[in-house]
């Protein structure tokens, strides 16, 4: 058995793909604010990639805007923030060696948005590929770089700071 396989036996792994139900077990967000449909790649504590399908049935499009539906740019930021929570939530599961533990209470706040750019509008029917990479940490603060693409076209890039709560707090 390889060393990686041995490690997998010792530590229950949390690996992509994660279904919408898997994501709902990691995050406290619920309808209408659970954004991610699927996590397609995941390295706990480091990075993740997910899918968000933008549909005409999304309630927010009824008001943004009537007759000219555009998926709100701020919700693209939220997609990255939720993916960041998947990254640190899955790392917490790995560290407690229990993939059924409830880590949704670790989700903290969005603390900062820097250098957000929206290259083109996102419309119903677009499939967003959202990517997030976790960077430097200080205390509860985690720096995150994120982007969203439709097909091969990058539609949004941003740097965020999010916080992770210590569940004992």
């Amino acid at each position, binding site marked *: 058995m390889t060393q990686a396989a041995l490690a997998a036996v010792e530590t229950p792994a949390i690996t992509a793909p994660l279904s919408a139900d898997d994501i709902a077990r990691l995050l406290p967000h619920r309808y209408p604010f659970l954004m991610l449909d699927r996590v397609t790649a995941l390295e706990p504590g480091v990075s993740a990639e997910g899918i968000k399908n933008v549909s005409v049935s999304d309630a927010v499009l009824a008001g943004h805007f009537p007759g000219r539906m555009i998926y709100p740019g701020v919700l693209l930021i939220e997609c990255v923030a939720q993916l960041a929570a998947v990254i640190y939530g899955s790392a917490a599961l790995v560290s407690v060696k229990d993939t059924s533990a409830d880590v949704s209470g670790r989700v903290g706040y969005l603390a*900062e948005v820097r250098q957000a750019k929206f290259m083109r509008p996102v419309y119903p029917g677009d499939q967003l590929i959202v990517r997030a990479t976790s960077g*430097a940490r*200080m*205390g509860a*603060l985690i*720096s995150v770089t994120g982007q969203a693409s439709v097909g091969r076209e990058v539609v949004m890039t941003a740097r965020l*700071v999010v916080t992770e709560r210590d569940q004992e707090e």
Partner: protein
Amino acid sequence: MALTLEETTERARNRQELCADVKALLVERLDLDVNPTLIGDDQPLFGRGLELDSIDTLELAMAIEEKYEVTITDDETDSLLSLNRLVDHVEANRS
């Protein structure tokens, strides 16, 4: 061991240059609306000093790490209290 006048002058000049560089880095990375040459060496970075907040500590730590390859850990955040302390930290840990 006592330093010669030349060594002392050289050291002071290096320190001054490093202080100026760190001030410029601060202003650039944190988008501060202040002239870097007007920042005092002993000026507190937070509160009534440069009015940085706790969220800025992460950006500042990242900037210092990128430029000087010096990390600031959770236990070393005292180094962010004033410009002089930050420069002390960079000088002491720079390779």
